[in-house]
């Protein structure tokens, strides 16, 4: 294949995978979870622990005039309190990834001097029980001086609005122009230019069912801070916490076993971990905190809200879409907790699934008095991909193309791979036309069009929608240099250790923090294949443990990469161990290494299976009978093999904003048939299908489960889940009663199929997956627009509850502006 040489150094793909890799072996994790034997963070406790309750700002923006904790501290059972004032002394502001102006921000673990969003922690109370802590919190007197609020992600940059961070001087955190190809040429030479006024990607969260929590103990004797927490990217957290409180990473221990979902929302919990550490040191006790749901919804992290303005799309008369030009405003909320990485992450998928060549995105990251954003499932790419899909459908509608044909025409074609995007990213493999064909079969596209015609005049309108998305995985942290050339990050990687223990047990430890993705199972599958044994003979340590497991700076579970980085590391370590076992086995059997094979937990001669040594024989010899071995052999094996998988990245270019930003490009194409009630605007999904392509699948059932889950998040966000603030900055859906998480009645059965286009760039042909790219957001918007009467306003928002659809239905009769215009030559 040309790819290996053209874009990346050749990668050797393992021939050993097969016996178990690729099979839907049942998950080893399941037994303990089904038996109620899981160990989630709220299930843990320590002797003498206190319980924490955070007093939070009821104001979206207010100066903290004074805090009086005396009445609370006088309560029986109250151990200590921690105020923002103290934090200002005990903590240095967090390191900022943004250059100026955003980089000037001073961010602490609690509100210092000023609260900038409703729910921001102002005081922490530690007491004998959580109930007593909450009782005491009501006795804490905080005097606030309310300040004006700024809530609109675009309007917040206007001169007259309140400035959230005085150090920055405005509410602009980052600005940059991404200019690829020649969009001006394209706009001048296109047969048509489609202009879209505004598209808005709303705020929501994948809201894991387990909220954030931690049990933290700052050991006064050793000076080690132990964090038992469901944070899903501990080394990233350590990078922020360490310098902020002057503690080395060697004095920070992180561990988790079972995590009740994360979806990226649990990456930015480092602020809470910092506060808990400081409180533990002050009180001289372990401190335990379990976030309530309202705290989670109001003050953990929200997905990025993004507004796209003045979109111009040059289109040729044959339907070829040349590119697009847009102004994007990404609303980061009150602080840059993971931002402004989102300002570059989207550019992993600049043209979406299409052969779009000329793109200019004028991108501004802004600040508002809302909950800070975090990298929610599909982070930053799904916002952009949704806009691209909206462009495709709007162009089709306005210029009279069939939306299916327009996609077929503009898709990157199977023969194009590896495909280089306008900004130098390399799409590794895929076949979007085949996926589209399959997904249309699954929903019986022609039949659905029939039903659509038949439904006219019944009061119910049928709509058919398509959404094509990418799930770019294994990102190159060097892309952070595109937003800040001074950042010391590049590449990516994950570490694993595979060892043979004394009695022949094979143990695997990894640096990842699984939250339901089945890492224990898939790691056992690939290890078993490489060592010639069965997965149930492989013990994969559960969860993350910095001290007991190996790790690298990128360790964690995020951004669709485990199958590549995590399993890449496990495979490398297993191969190393295999090499050592073969060496020792060959010596003990008096044979050449080339005569040796591993099977059923034995080292044996390929030619004579009777001549075999069980792994216990190898281990016992190396660990307990080592004098039997030649010295140089004994010195050359450890049976304890660590491997770090490193994707073959180079550093992207800061000036041109180009480079190889991610290694793999899994894709999903969804299709839906919906029914819209003309009188109410209520949308009902009649049929839903998803076709997935993520390279070689190690465990197909786990992959399918990830597709279902990502689809449900998208469907929920499209129809039910939206964070809404009132004009005062108060969150109006602060509980699950008003933030309607999709139920079993809201998510339809999902018809699923897949195709497999192995990645040529990864050690196992797999692509990272799991985020899904937000396909349902595009699909349902596409279907709603398809159901609307002639002359209706375009579907302009990712969230369409019944009232919004009702208004769209009525817009046709109103004959008002439709949010789009076409200029033709």
């Amino acid at each position: 294949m040309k790819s290996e040489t053209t874009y990346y150094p050749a990668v050797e793909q393992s021939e050993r995978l097969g016996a178990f890799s690729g099979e839907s072996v049942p998950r080893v994790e399941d037994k303990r979870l089904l038996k109620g034997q899981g160990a989630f963070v709220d299930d843990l406790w320590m002797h003498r622990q206190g319980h924490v309750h955070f007093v939070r700002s009821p104001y979206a923006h207010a100066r903290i005039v004074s805090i009086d904790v005396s009445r609370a501290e006088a309560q029986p059972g109250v151990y200590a309190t921690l105020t923002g004032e103290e934090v200002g002394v005990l903590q240095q502001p967090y390191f900022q990834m943004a250059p100026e102006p955003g980089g000037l921000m001073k961010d602490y673990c609690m509100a210092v001097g000023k609260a900038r969003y409703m729910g921001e922690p102002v005081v922490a109370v530690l007491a004998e029980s959580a109930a007593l802590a909450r009782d005491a919190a009501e006795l804490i007197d905080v005097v606030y001086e309310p300040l004006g609020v700024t809530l609109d992600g675009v309007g917040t940059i206007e001169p007259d609005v309140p400035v959230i961070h005085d150090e920055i001087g405005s509410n602009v955190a980052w600005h940059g122009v991404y200019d690829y190809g020649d969009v001006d040429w394209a706009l001048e030479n296109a047969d048509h230019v489609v202009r879209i006024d505004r598209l808005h990607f709303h705020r929501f969260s994948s809201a894991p069912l387990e909220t954030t929590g931690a049990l933290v103990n700052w050991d006064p004797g050793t000076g080690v801070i132990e964090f038992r927490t469901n944070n899903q990217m501990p080394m990233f957290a350590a990078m922020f916490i360490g310098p902020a409180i002057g503690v080395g990473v060697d004095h920070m221990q992180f561990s988790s076993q079972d995590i009740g979902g994360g979806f990226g929302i649990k990456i930015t919990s480092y602020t809470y971990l910092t506060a808990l550490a400081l409180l533990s040191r002050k009180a001289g006790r372990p401190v335990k905190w379990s976030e309530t749901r309202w705290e989670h919804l109001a003050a953990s992290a929200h997905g990025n809200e993004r507004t796209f303005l003045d979109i111009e799309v040059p289109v040729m008369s044959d339907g070829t879409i040349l590119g697009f030009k847009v102004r994007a405003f990404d609303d980061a909320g009150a602080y840059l907790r993971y931002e402004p990485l989102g300002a570059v992450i989207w550019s992993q998928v600049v043209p979406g699934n299409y052969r779009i060549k000329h793109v200019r995105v004028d991108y501004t990251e802004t600040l508002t008095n809302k909950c800070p954003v975090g990298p929610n499932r599909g982070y930053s790419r799904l916002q952009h991909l949704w806009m691209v899909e909206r462009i495709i459908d709007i162009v089709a509608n306005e210029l009279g193309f069939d939306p299916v044909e327009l996609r077929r025409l503009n898709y990157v074609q199977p023969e194009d791979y590896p495909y280089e995007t306008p900004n130098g990213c390399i799409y590794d493999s895929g076949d979007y036309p085949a996926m589209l064909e399959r997904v249309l079969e699954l929903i019986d596209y022609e039949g659905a069009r029939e039903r659509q015609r038949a439904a006219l005049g019944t009061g119910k309108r049928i709509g058919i929608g398509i959404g094509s998305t990418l799930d770019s995985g294994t990102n190159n942290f060097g892309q952070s240099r595109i937003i800040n050339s001074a950042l010391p990050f590049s590449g990516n990687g994950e570490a694993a250790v595979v060892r043979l223990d004394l009695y022949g047990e094979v143990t695997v430890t990894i640096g990842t923090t699984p939250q339901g993705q089945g890492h224990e199972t898939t790691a056992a599958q690939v290890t078993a294949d490489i060592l010639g044994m069965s997965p149930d003979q492989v013990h994969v340590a559960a969860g993350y443990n910095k001290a007991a497991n190996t790790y690298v700076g990128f360790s964690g579970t995020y951004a669709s990469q485990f199958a590549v980085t995590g399993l890449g590391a496990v495979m490398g370590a297993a191969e190393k161990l295999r090499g050592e076992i073969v060496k020792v086995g060959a010596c003990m059997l008096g044979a050449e290494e080339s005569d040796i094979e591993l099977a059923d937990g034995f080292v044996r001669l390929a030619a004579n299976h009777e001549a075999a040594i069980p792994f216990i024989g190898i281990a016992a010899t190396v660990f307990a009978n080592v004098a039997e071995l030649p010295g140089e052999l004994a010195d050359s094996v450890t049976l304890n093999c660590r491997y770090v998988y490193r994707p073959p990245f180079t550093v992207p270019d800061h000036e041109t904003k180009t480079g190889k930003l991610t290694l793999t490009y899994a894709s999903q194409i969804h299709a839906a048939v919906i029914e819209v009630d003309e009188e109410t605007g209520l949308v009902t999904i009649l049929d839903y299908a998803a076709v997935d392509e993520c390279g070689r699948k190690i465990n197909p059932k786990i992959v399918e489960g990830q597709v279902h889950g990502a689809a449900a998040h998208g469907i929920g966000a499209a129809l039910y889940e939206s964070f809404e603030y009132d004009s005062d900055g108060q969150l109006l859906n602060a509980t699950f009663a008003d933030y309607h998480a999709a139920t079993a009645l809201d998510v339809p059965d999902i018809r699923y199929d897949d195709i497999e286009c192995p990645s040529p760039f990864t050690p196992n042909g797999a692509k990272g997956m799991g985020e899904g790219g937000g396909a349902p957001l595009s699909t349902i918007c596409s279907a709603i627009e398809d159901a609307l009467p002639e002359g209706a306003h375009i579907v302009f928002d990712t969230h369409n509850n019944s009232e919004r659809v009702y208004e769209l239905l009525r817009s046709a009769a109103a004959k008002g502006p439709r949010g789009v215009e076409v200029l033709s030559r």
Partner: protein
Amino acid sequence: MAGEGGAVNSIEVTVNGETHRVAVEARRLLVHFIRETLGMRGTHIGCDSGNCGACSVICDGQLIKSCMMLAVAADGCEIETVESLGDGPDDLDPIQAAFKEHHGLQCGYCTPGFLLNTKTLLAENPNPSEAEIRRALKGNLCRCTGYVNIVRSVQAAAEALR
């Protein structure tokens, strides 16, 4: 577990066949009684408004949310939690086995509630349609599976138990 303050009532409640005679604060929720007082951590907490069902337990044969009931109100009741399912610490009952076989769980946090929901559903209706299953599961939120494999697991469990 530390005291919470406030009035105390003594109750007698049977959990998974074991009867406990204890004094509990009147304000204590049943879910906290199960998790903290009894130290049984299989019953989970996912929200504070009775919407998520992660704390579902069986009370006198009926599925309830243990965050929507005071522990004192459970006086004299028979409670079943996820720990009661299966025969011993390693055995999976047919419902648990079906969830495992059909990948009806990912992070596993909501799972105990779904298992108990399924148990009571199949006791009332051994042969539920997909629509009946979805309606029955409505009070339990899952954020990982999209419910697709949970519904399949319930169908398989129904099959196995028939």
